[in-house]
């Protein structure tokens, strides 16, 4: 398979410096794009059908087309790279940040050029120390080589780019929470509309894109939308960084064609379950996605395929549940995370998620009551889309509602025996 996102990544993971990156073909797309009209860059990305790799899967080119353009558009305009990888079980952007920082910068220059952004921020987790160091170094090199700053490569286009290391909170990964965090505030979500494309960072037009999404852009500009579509095995274009964690033989991360099946990932790439363990289920795209089970192994890991099976592609990094791990304990761990990371802005989220954690804890510790399952089901409805300010709570109850569906007997056994059968 043709390597795209991992093309520049060396076996030792040390990133290429700007010179070596250029020699390998890096920054070529910037020169090409600067000869194009910004709207043609957007059009190329639209035609490629690139969809956001952060979890929501929104079409990238379409997102850009909402940004006001022309001489009367508000300035400055902003571009933010969402490098706040905090979805439990997700470890894909770390690779791109640590090992291909110039590819991200190149993609950001293209996105900024398309929407005529003046300033770009890379919003990165404070815990990603190595990635921050390498990004800072790459940024300095990119300025030195004339890819950032005033009049990039002799053109009329100028762009400043900075790194912001986060103070740490899951809510910062939410688009409008990220903007509040960049403004030095608590990362509460904002009401939409207005959408950030119109009124975002400091009230100006702003685009927020995931690291993997941005890292695809140089290749789309270099090779064209048709080439990008053909990389995939499905309706969704391109390749995808897929990950597997949990008790499989070889947990890991692989760049594969979009639409690779769960079975192929689990059996061929992750080497199957560890000796003596059986597969019970999987969260296909990180902590905030619904469980899938053995009947879904042939589901294609693309946006439509996983949705049809009742879950979401999310970040494409799956977490495997084995038969020696308690599903109630696993869901309790997940809800603990979501309850802790809830910003507290809206009631279903702060109240519902901490309540779910309490109920799951009492069930796991042998104090569960028969009507606890109905209460948990109520919480899932209470936190559904439309009842909350942002996607945190609806995402948080996805693993809970599907665990209640697929592992209901296990919940029942806990309550009947007043004991966790796995302990």
């Amino acid at each position, binding site marked *: 398979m043709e390597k795209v996102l991992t093309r520049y990544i060396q076996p030792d993971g040390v990133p290429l410096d700007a010179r070596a990156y250029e020699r390998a073909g890096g920054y070529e797309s910037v020169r090409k794009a600067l000869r194009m009209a910004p709207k043609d860059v957007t059009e190329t990305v639209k035609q490629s059908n690139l969809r956001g790799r952060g979890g929501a899967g929104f079409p990238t080119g379409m997102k850009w087309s909402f940004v006001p353009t022309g001489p009367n558009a508000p300035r*400055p305009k902003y571009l933010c790279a969402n490098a706040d*990888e*905090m*979805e*439990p*079980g*997700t*470890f894909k*952007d*770390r690779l791109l940040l640590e090992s291909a920082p110039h590819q991200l910068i190149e993609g950001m220059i293209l996105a900024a050029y398309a929407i005529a952004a003046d300033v770009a921020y890379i919003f990165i*987790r*404070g*815990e*990603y*120390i*190595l990635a921050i160091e390498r990004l800072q170094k790459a940024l300095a090199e990119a300025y030195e080589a004339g890819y950032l700053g005033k009049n990039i490569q002799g053109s009329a286009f100028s762009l*400043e780019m*900075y790194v*912001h*290391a*986060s*103070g*740490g*909170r*899951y809510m910062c990964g939410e688009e409008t929470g990220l903007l509040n*965090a*960049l*403004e*030095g*505030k*608590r*990362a509460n979500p904002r009401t939409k509309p207005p959408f950030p494309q119109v009124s975002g960072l*400091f009230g100006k037009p702003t685009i927020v894109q995931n690291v993997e999404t941005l890292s695809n852009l140089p290749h789309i500009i270099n090779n064209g939308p048709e080439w990008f579509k053909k990389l995939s095995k499905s309706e969704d274009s391109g390749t995808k960084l897929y*990950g*597997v*964690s*949990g*008790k499989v033989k070889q*947990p*890991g*991360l692989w760049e594969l064609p979009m639409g690779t099946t769960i079975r192929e990932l689990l059996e061929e790439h992750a080497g199957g379950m560890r000796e003596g363990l059986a597969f019970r289920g999987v*969260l296909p795209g990180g*902590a905030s996605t619904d469980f899938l089970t053995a009947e879904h192994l042939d589901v294609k890991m693309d946006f439509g395929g996983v949705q049809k099976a009742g879950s979401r592609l999310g970040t494409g*990094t799956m*977490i*495997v*549940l*084995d038969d020696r*791990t308690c599903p109630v*304990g*696993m869901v309790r*761990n*997940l809800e*603990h*995370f979501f309850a*802790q*990371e809830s*910003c507290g802005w809206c009631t279903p989220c702060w109240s519902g998620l901490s309540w779910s954690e309490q109920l799951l804890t009492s069930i796991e510790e042998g104090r569960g009551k028969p009507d606890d399952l109905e209460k948990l089901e109520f919480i899932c409805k209470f936190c559904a889309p439309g009842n909350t300010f942002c996607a945190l709570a609806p995402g948080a109850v996805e693993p809970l509602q599907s665990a209640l569906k697929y592992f209901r007997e296990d919940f029942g056994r806990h309550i009947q025996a007043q004991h966790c059968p796995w302990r």
Partner: protein
Amino acid sequence: MLSAEERHEIEEELKRYPSKRAVSIDAMKIVQRRRGWVSDEALRDIAELLEISADDLDSVATFYNLIFRKPVGRHVIMVCDSVSCWIMGYDRVREHLTKRLGINMGETTPDGRFTLLPIVCLGTCDHAPAMMVDQQLHRDLDAEKIDKILEQCS
């Protein structure tokens, strides 16, 4: 009072944003990098520099996991307690650390050497369980590995 270096570093950050309060988090991190934590006094000094109220800044400080509003030990151990690490043995890692250090999560050893904290997913799930000690990530942890890491911290 903020030191000249702290003030200088914060002023460098201010050049990158159109508003002063935007550097709230960066400013607290700059101070914390030198002092280990953000005291009430430091909070007031930063707030004054950024022209916001200390209470307002405190509401930001207490929102973020990586800003410490209480003193910490010379080394801060942050153990990932999220789902992949939980499946792969977080409970064993926590038990080993609390036993070895004689403290619970959220506490500091009496000699001021270590503070033990839980942290959310560190994004290294294919090498779980994991933890960070100060700026360094440690992966595929077991008791032996943890003991070696602790020994290296003076």
